[in-house]
């Protein structure tokens, strides 16, 4: 084959490499990363972007060069050189993708492990449970994860080599057409937005009340389908204060595009303040939710009131007034 002289090849190789390395770090495509795992995923993406840019420039460059350089002159009816293959070259370009995907697979495995994807409590699927759709919004179903029953869920668990397993804030997430409902078993709060303190590990138990939904936090690079009848766990630690969108990413009906909510990552003080405001506002409903939580004295105190409550619409109406975030749900 008519391979150009070595010095040109070398220069082209260096330029392609430098361009790939530069673009891999400076593509500017990713939104802000709000957890340490998200940063790791971004680094993985930057690596893939670097390799992809290199391959892209190489192949597109050869194509453009070929259609300019190897054009048939007018009137020339001869053929090109009859090269039917080149075994060393073919071995080379079989080996290159093999090595690339091998490195990429191992790298991805490491990142996935760091995200807690291989946590045995999260990595096994015990199959679905029967739920009647009519009852799926009842509060019993919202308390998803019960260690005593040894149920383990799908999703992302505790990252190894971190302290994510300690002092977790557990939040039960229920997806319904077209809203997310967040229940805090610790405090009994039921909310249409999610408030979490920065730096504290959060464990979400995700399920759905009607059809499939997917719980997506773009700034945390986390997504997990919410499946009716299954409990799925998602563990992460926010490290950046801010307001982030919560998006439904699985087609769930006509207003799927409107099924959005907000995640507020707050400082500890702000979070405690929010907690208090909402605990006061919801003290009349919390008793049914907080049976096993720290506020057991409160719940004992409020137990007699429990029978009088249970209307979902009231709860939602309160939330509406509190947060000025209209829920699209027709509850």
């Amino acid at each position, binding site marked *: 084959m008519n391979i150009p002289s070595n010095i040109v090849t070398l220069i082209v190789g260096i330029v392609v490499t430098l361009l790939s390395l530069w673009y891999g770090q400076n593509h500017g495509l990713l939104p802000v990363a709000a957890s340490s795992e998200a940063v790791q995923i971004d680094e993985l993406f930057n690596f893939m972007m670097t390799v992809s840019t290199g391959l892209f420039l190489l192949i597109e460059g050869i194509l453009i060069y070929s*259609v300019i350089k190897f054009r048939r002159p007018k009137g020339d009816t001869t053929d*090109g050189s009859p090269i*039917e*293959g080149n075994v060393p*070259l073919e071995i080379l370009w079989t080996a290159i993708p093999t090595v690339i995907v091998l490195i990429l697979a191992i790298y991805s495995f490491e990142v996935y492990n760091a995200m807690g994807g291989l946590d045995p409590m999260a990595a096994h699927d015990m199959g679905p449970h029967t739920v009647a759709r009519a009852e799926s919004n009842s509060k019993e179903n919202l308390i998803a994860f019960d260690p005593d029953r040894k149920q383990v869920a799908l999703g992302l668990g505790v990252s190894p080599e971190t302290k994510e397993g300690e002092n977790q804030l557990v939040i039960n997430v229920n997806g319904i057409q077209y809203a997310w409902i967040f229940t805090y078993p610790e405090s009994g709060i039921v909310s249409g937005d999610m408030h979490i303190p920065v730096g504290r590990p959060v464990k979400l138990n995700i399920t759905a009340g009607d059809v499939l939904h997917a719980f997506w936090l773009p700034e945390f690079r986390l997504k997990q389908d919410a499946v009716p009848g*299954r409990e799925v766990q998602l563990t992460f630690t926010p490290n950046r204060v801010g307001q982030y969108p919560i998006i439904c990413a699985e087609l769930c009906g006509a207003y799927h*595009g409107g099924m959005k909510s907000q995640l507020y990552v707050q400082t500890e003080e702000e979070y405690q303040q929010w907690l208090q405001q909402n605990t006061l506002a919801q003290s009349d409903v919390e008793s049914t939710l907080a049976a096993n939580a720290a506020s057991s004295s409160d719940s004992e105190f409020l137990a007699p009131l429990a029978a009088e409550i249970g209307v979902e619409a009231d709860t939602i109406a309160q939330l509406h007034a509190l947060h000025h975030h209209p829920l699209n749900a027709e509850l």
Partner: protein
Amino acid sequence: MSTSAEKIVTSTHDGQKAEHKQRKWQDYFTFNTDHKVIGIQYLVTAFLFYFVGGALAEVMRTELATPEPDLVQPEFYNQIMTMHGTIMLFLWIIPAGAAFANFLIPLMIGAEDMAFPRLNAVAYWMFPIGGILLMSSFFVGPAQAGWTSYPPLSLVASKWGQEIWILSILILGTSTILGSINFITTILKMRMPDMDIHSMPLFCWSMLATSGLILLGTPVLAAALILLSFDLIAGTSFFNPAGGGDPIVYQHMFWFYSHPAVYIMVLPFFGIISEVLPVHARKPIFGYRAIAYSSLAIAFLGLIVWAHHMFTSGTPGWLRMFFMATTMVIAVPTGIKVFSWTATIWGGKINLNSAMLFGVGFISLFLIGGLSGIMVASVPFDIHVHDTYFVVAHFHYVLFGGSVLALFAGIYHWFPKMTGRMLNETWGRIHFALTYIGFNLTFLPMHQLGIQGMNRRVALYDAQFQSVNMICTIGSYILAVSTLPFVVNVLWSVFKGEKAGRNPWRALTLEWQTSSPPAIENFEEEPVLWAGPYEYGVDTEMIDEDSSIEEMLAEVSAEAK
């Protein structure tokens, strides 16, 4: 095969006459068993559905020009989105692949027709029936759960539209099974005696791989859809969690077919590219066996990667890792193909006509789809971009930038053989330029949209994405306009185009040995296998004769007259 032997004799006899029988235009509207008629029928019908699916896409893009759902109701948006996907996959790309396979396979292997001509005609006629049935769902409100039709949503929205969707896919699936039985039998049993399996054109290899996938995958989809249908109309609970069913099982069964379906949609066009590039680059295909076997490797691997569509679904961690590994391995045979095609062009004598423009355009765009495919195979990154516009961009680069561009390359390449007339080159180049610009303008920005947080299948979206969406919408209009020069070119050239002759490209595969359009029963005299399918440049060197091919063909045609 005694009948076919007799036919050879009669056709040889007919070949001595000055005129051979031609197809009448009426034949194309009847239950005709000629593989060439069926091929054209498939192609024209597929194009009609392509325009319907494209029109739906333009409605979607117009809706998405603004963040609010202002043009159509969100429910109707989901319906046309579902229909767009279903039409483009089941009524456009898959039948278009079958069109080329029907027209080309018997010609390429020197046979008179397919192994089972009547079955072939039945397979074709199920396609418009299934298509019209699907269209009829517009009268009752079409399915709106996406082309994936995941339960429970598919069980609670548009009940009768969903049921029609299921029935139509069952009909179309059966049609592809019948077709692939025919392709496999024809390729394995009806090659001319001199042609062993390693001297048949690469398009036949790719159809062998495709047909195998159809036979293994489609029955599983049919099972899933029949069970879904029971859930829908008989109140069973196979997939309905309200009655103890499991929606994840449906996803496994659906993707067990539908991931291989991606290869069913792209492998035939890999084959087309392997035919088009050597002819117009005047160079043998680089690495014949590597390309042939990589088609089989892709088909095999394609069967064990389906759960990568379910990384964020109910898939345990270890299973995610397994499917990530198998998915990434597909990059190896696919990479071999891309490198081999690139090496085929390198050092050739390229005639950059419309067919070649689309062929090179195919490599350049499919490359992007392949690279983003490796990215979404990586579980941590896929968790972020799954069900976003990044994935929409990815599969459009594979299926439009890949399959459809290769399809147009095939049309510009074989139109002279199909009709006996050349397409206009200038309009072909305009068609390519508009398609290429419009396509990239529509789909390249979608990568960014997805990474930054725009989910797919939405009629309303966050206002921050409006400007990029506007670019996509403008691109989609250019893409719509790009079909006009093509349609005009085809309609004009069919009647008024320059006469093509037997072999306008001086190509070596067997279909160019017969007249254009080929006679009924294909070859006037028994075809001679005097060169391998890609032996360009070999004769020139050995015999030192520039126009040996043309002279030999002239001799053949002189004999025919």
